């Protein structure tokens, strides 16, 4: 019985290793959009994700704190412009997240 419990924990264990910063749905979406482009500004990302300004802003701050997103603020004329891009760590973390999710979800079946 004890052996069975250990085996079950081994199977579930990868879920514990999932990067929780990326795993949050809105942040996962932001990371996915930034992964497929070189860089984008705040407005573009807001249009693509459909998130509100405040929501997007707070998720970006979390991703920046984790070192996953580089944020460059500048002015274009009198208008502020925020350029966003995935950092190298962010790109690696996203790729690792994808692999782990494939590993975990690949093992799930309805049988």
């Amino acid at each position, binding site marked *: 019985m004890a052996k069975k419990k250990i085996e079950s924990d081994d199977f579930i264990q990868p879920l514990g290793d999932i990067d929780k910063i990326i795993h949050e*749905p809105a942040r996962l979406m932001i990371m*996915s959009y930034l992964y497929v482009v070189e860089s984008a500004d705040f407005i573009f990302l807001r*249009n*693509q*994700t459909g998130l509100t300004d405040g929501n997007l802003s707070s998720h970006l701050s979390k991703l920046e704190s984790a070192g996953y997103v580089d944020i460059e603020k500048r002015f274009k004329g009198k208008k502020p412009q925020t350029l966003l891009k995935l950092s190298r760590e962010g790109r690696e973390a996203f790729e690792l997240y994808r692999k782990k999710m494939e590993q975990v979800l690949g093992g799930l079946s309805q049988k």
Partner: protein
Amino acid sequence: MEKITNSIDLKEIEKKTWRSTLEDGLLDMYFGMLVLSIGLGITLGDLLPEPFDSLLPIILMIIGLILFLLGKKFITQPRLGIVKFGFRQKTRKLKTVLVLSINSIILLILFIIRLVNPDLRLIFPVYIEGLIIGLLFITFPLCFAAYFLQYTRLYFIALLVGLSFFLSDLLSIILPEPFDALMAFGIVSVIIIIEGFIFLIKFLRKYPLSKEEMT
């Protein structure tokens, strides 16, 4: 939030992101302007004195390009935002430029051959010549460009522009030269410009002018 709950397909996200930059219809309108300048070039070549006959189409093309770039800067960017694409999209653009450049070189060679031997003709009747040249050197290369750029509307534009030479030959039955060309290219360019304009209106509705950034 529906977007979030759907499964995430990175290829689809990349496609959607790329296609959103073509939603404004400005490129369509630019193609329309190009077609119009070809038509005017053919027509005015017989009506205007040199060098205005050859300069006007070039001026029109430059005006079209300036309008396109201004539209991108003052209409599209403030609404859609700015995006820089990665290696894959750059490769697509490069392939498109390559195909269109090879096509232009072939066209240039054919033009020189025709210039040296004005009597040289294809073995087909004249109206079929226009159809073949249009489809072979305009529709097919533009279709390749549409495929590489994932720009679906360009297939339609390619077909219209390719057929405009044939349409010009058909109209020559009822219209005197050079107005047949003006009418054919005029009709095609108006269709393309209207189509682009409809997409621009849809774009303006979908992406209203953006508020100040909140970061």
